[in-house]
């Protein structure tokens, strides 16, 4: 109590001023370690990425500035064009699948049933476990000779002959899409479930007493109220999927015939396997416009929510 009265006795302005200055100094001191780290290991490498992409640097050779030639060369390269196309197919298909199935799963998990928490936890498992290790399991499940997926589907009579999962271009793309959906579905389901739980029950009760059917409730209450969560989840997943690496790297390594080559795997092959660092850097930078679009989209949504 003594200290409070002493504070009150002081003239207000100078103290407030001193306090604010002190507060600002404390603030800078507290953010400086994080700022330093991000400047050295994030901002600087990014600037470096832009610079390297403008050179013809090779592994072990510094190279010289060739300006935009890497980019022009890439845009004319049929392999790169295929990579762009593959990346779009991969991203659009998996995000659509994850959103549709995720919404369905969230609606199911939002209902009452026995062992609900256990089931909710189990559903999250594919998202928690190291992707490289679970994708290895999928590689084994898609094995050309011992595929257990074919074994089960044949046994159930769903298919009449073996599917060449990783063996032909169409099924290889289907395989990476299935595995990406498997891995990303929990994130969609959990986030959408969290969104569903915030929708007040009274809204549905009111609608039902006015004679609304389940489908109408979903269309006119659930979907509109879930829109912000859907937007955020879709934007996050878009950039993650677009920049994905390990699922394709382990499952198909971009093959067969580059049918599943996407930006990150091609950048890795060109920069580190073939040693063309400049060109590889340019490929990686093609992810930047997508990142920028996602950031703008997210900021737009977050602003609107505020």
């Amino acid at each position, binding site marked *: 109590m003594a200290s409070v009265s002493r*504070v009150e006795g002081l003239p207000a302005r100078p103290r407030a001023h001193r306090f*604010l200055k002190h*507060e600002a100094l404390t*603030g800078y001191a*507290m*953010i400086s*370690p*994080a*700022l330093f*780290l*991000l400047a*050295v*290991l*994030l901002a600087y*490498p*990014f600037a*470096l*990425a832009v610079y*390297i992409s403008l050179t013809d640097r090779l592994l072990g050779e510094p190279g010289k500035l060739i300006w935009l030639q890497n980019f022009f060369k890439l845009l004319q390269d049929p392999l790169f064009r295929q990579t762009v196309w593959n990346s779009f197919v991969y991203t659009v298909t998996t995000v659509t699948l994850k959103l549709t199935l995720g919404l369905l799963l969230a609606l*199911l998990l939002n*209902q009452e*049933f026995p062992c609900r*928490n256990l*089931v909710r*936890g189990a*559903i*999250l*498992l*594919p998202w*928690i*476990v*190291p*992707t*490289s*290790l*679970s994708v*290895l*399991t999928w590689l*084994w*499940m898609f094995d050309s000779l*011992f595929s*257990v997926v074919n074994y089960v589907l044949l046994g159930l009579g769903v298919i009449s002959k073996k599917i060449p999962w990783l063996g032909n271009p169409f099924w290889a793309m289907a395989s990476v899409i299935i595995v990406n959906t498997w891995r990303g579905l929990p994130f969609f389901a*959990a986030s959408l479930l*969290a969104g569903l739980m*915030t929708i007040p029950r009274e809204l549905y009760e009111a609608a039902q007493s006015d004679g609304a059917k389940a489908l109408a409730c979903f269309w006119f209450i659930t979907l509109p109220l879930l829109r912000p969560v859907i937007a955020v989840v879709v934007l996050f997943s878009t*950039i*993650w999927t677009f*920049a994905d*690496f*390990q699922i394709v790297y*382990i499952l198909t390594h971009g093959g067969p015939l580059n049918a599943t080559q996407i*930006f*990150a795997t091609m*950048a*890795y092959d060109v920069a*580190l396997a073939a040693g063309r660092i400049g060109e*590889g850097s340019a490929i*990686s930078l093609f992810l930047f416009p997508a*990142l920028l679009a*996602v950031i703008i989209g997210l900021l737009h949504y977050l602003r609107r929510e505020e």
Partner: protein
Amino acid sequence: MRHRLPRMLKRMLGLYLPLAAFLFFALFPFYWMTISAFKPNRELYNLQAKRLWIQEPTLEQFHELFRKTTAWQWLWNSFFVSGLAAFISLALGILAGYALARLRFPGAEGFGLATFITYLVPTTLLFIPLAGVVQRLGLSNTIWSLVATYPTFLVPFCTWMLIAYFKSIPRDMEECAMIDGCSRVGALVRIVLPVAIPGIIFSGMFSFTLSWNEFVYALTFVSDTTHKTMSVAVPTELIRGDAYFWGELMAASLLGSVPVALLYSFFMDYFVSGLTAGALKG
């Protein structure tokens, strides 16, 4: 009675059946990983055997794995890197998160926005130049390259998560402490941190998991067998050319998956509440 049967049927078709299908899809790969790890080779590669069950369970895949490789070392590397990276990120994230949640200073909003944006930057955008930076720092081919670089995506995550937690703590509590002579840092340590424990645990666990699972940086920066982490060592060291030792691969995958699955099951409540908070705040 006439009313009850269709209702149960409806519940069966509308809830339990699709839920079972989703559970099967989510969990079957783990089931397959587990049973493959405990099968002897003669059963693993026998198309006539009962494939969805183990007839003669054995530990021989694990014995072979430890005899042929340095799997213990990989596990230890994963623990060391993930633990240290999570700890560093948590420390930096607590400081930055608290400053952004509580203190007013010019540039605070810009920095907050910057951390959010950096959280979205994919590792595949930066791995090529970062390999050069790591080399110049003298860290290439050591686990320290990972301890240094993982915080670049963990610090933004921790900061962003913790801002939300710190903001939910009433300001009055620290102000009372500070009026009673506590410094800003004292108030943070004694008043704010104890209340924010759930948020801190969630951020720490999740950072640990993200580091444990990281693949691109670990693949690019480390090439020595003994310095690899589990997530990279298993797919790179156990596959030699065209030879896939599936039993050992699945045994190693199981070993690399169990720690995070256990961690997750112990702290599931924190995970679920943290995920919920994160999803809502976006």
